[in-house]
């Protein structure tokens, strides 16, 4: 039999409708966050800092800010999307539906990634109100944003399947991803760090992701764009692999 596109569409629309119910908070949150960061980092602190590698500080933090919010949003939306049916028990219907694992992932991750990209775009637009940002490689930038959204939504999907409580659902995005992103050069360049710390920071995988995204804006990053792309591809493959294994074994989905 052929693919169940209607089933994919049903879940995708269901998930978007779920976001739609909280559309104002979902939209207000990134706008307010961005505004706050620009007031604090851009104006208060940024005024005392000149440029980072030839880029005004206000513009410099835009890619990092987008990534920071998109990472956490992607993870929380995608993990919540699959965790809720597990929690309420409605997952019985999804498991009994004629839907392949790939289709299931496509629907849930596609919906969460859609929301992330919308939020990322809103931050980008809001940033324009405060600073002048030029994007050196617009196509690459869009491509990178899509890929990051999908990858982190895959990661969130894994967490949603793994989590057995609301606390576990929160723990990875808040205690792992947020700090790693913050320390991953979202708001500074690695050049600004002492040599020893710079070496330590290079173990943080998020550094390569943010650096790559910043490269698409300004044509330079902390590491080469090739290294960043390889890191993204690796993370993407890793997430896909884990999800494949989860569906194969029925890990925390089926008894």
């Amino acid at each position, binding site marked *: *039999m052929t693919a*169940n*596109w*209607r*089933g994919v*569409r*049903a*879940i995708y*629309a*269901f998930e978007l*409708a*779920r976001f739609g*119910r909280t559309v104002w908070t979902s939209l207000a949150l990134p706008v307010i966050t961005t505004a706050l960061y620009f007031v604090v980092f851009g104006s208060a602190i940024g005024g005392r800092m000149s440029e980072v590698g030839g880029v005004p500080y206000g513009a410099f933090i835009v890619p990092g800010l987008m990534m920071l919010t998109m990472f956490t949003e992607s993870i929380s939306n995608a993990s919540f999307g699959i965790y809720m049916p597990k929690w*309420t*028990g*409605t997952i*019985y*219907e*999804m*498991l*009994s*539906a*004629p*839907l*392949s694992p790939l289709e299931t992932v496509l629907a849930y991750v596609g919906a969460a990634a859609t929301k992330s990209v919308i939020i990322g775009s809103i931050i980008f637009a809001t940033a324009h109100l405060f600073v002048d940002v030029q994007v050196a490689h617009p196509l690459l930038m869009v491509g990178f944003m899509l890929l990051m959204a999908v990858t982190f939504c895959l990661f969130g999907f894994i967490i949603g399947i793994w989590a057995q409580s609301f606390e576990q659902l929160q723990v990875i995005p808040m205690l792992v991803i947020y700090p790693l992103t913050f320390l991953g050069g979202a708001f500074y360049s690695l050049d600004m760090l002492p040599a020893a710390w710079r070496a330590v920071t290079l173990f943080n995988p998020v550094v390569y992701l943010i650096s790559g995204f910043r490269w698409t804006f300004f044509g330079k990053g902390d590491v080469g764009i090739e290294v960043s792309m390889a890191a993204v591809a690796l993370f993407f493959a890793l997430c896909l692999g884990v999800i494949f294994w989860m569906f194969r074994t*029925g890990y925390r989905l*089926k*008894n």
Partner: protein
Amino acid sequence: MTAVLEISGLGKTYKSGHVALSDVDLSINKGEIFALLGPNGAGKTTLISIVCGIVTASAGRVTVAGHDHARDYRAARTMIGLVPQELHTDAFETVLATVSFSRGLFGKPRDPAFIEQLLRDLSLWDKRGSKIMELSGGMKRRVMIAKALSHEPEILFLDEPTAGVDVELRRDMWQMVHGLRERGVTIILTTHYIEEAEEMADRVGVISKGRLILVEEKHALIKKLGRKTLTLNLAEPIAAVPAELADWKLALAGDGHELVYEFDSQAEATGVPSLLRRMTDIGIAFKDLHTKQSSLEDIFVGLVHETKGEAA
């Protein structure tokens, strides 16, 4: 009759080591109503969950109209609708949205007219715009049924459909089941209410401790395993069963006003005429008598006790 669902050698051992099902063979005919009876924890829900794809079997094979339910799962699952025992619903969704969602999930094209008729049949049409969280338990149960029927399944599983359901909904449900059967839908229901099986089913399977211990056409089962009891209302109460009547293993009831004789209605010699003759001989008079065929419930309790006895 053609089999629409075939289960062979099915077994399930959970990670904890608990054996929920072992070596179950079952063949369900197209268009029949099959009742799976068993006490709580017997494995009824596990069996259904495996067929529907919610639980992975440890052993055995399931085919739905010839489609292997693991390898050819799309074809198999498209044919099946499931109403689980628990009320699992999306609290914030409206009735119409959640039922339409289910149809899409199973890959069927939108059909507002069909959904409207379905909701009307289940007395849900007036509530179509209500959020599920606003509905009563009985209404939620109806929503679950509507979801299961939204994609026009050929096989419907009802897991404990009338547990905790009021009389009206139970009657509606029985009516609905009969209506579906007339349209050729095969129905498999689990229950521990014997009257439900007795009222609705064509065939009955009894499951106990993960084993399917009996599958039988309902009337044949009652007839085959049916014990009859003869109750004699005595003219004068007696203190004890007279020694002359010891052969019949009678019981005294109703403060000495009743003699109760249990016999096998299928046996060549039931012992009834000889008992009556002997009573007349020894001068015990009776005013009235009646016989009663044992119900499915008596049979069921007897069977389950038997297997428990073996296991102990």
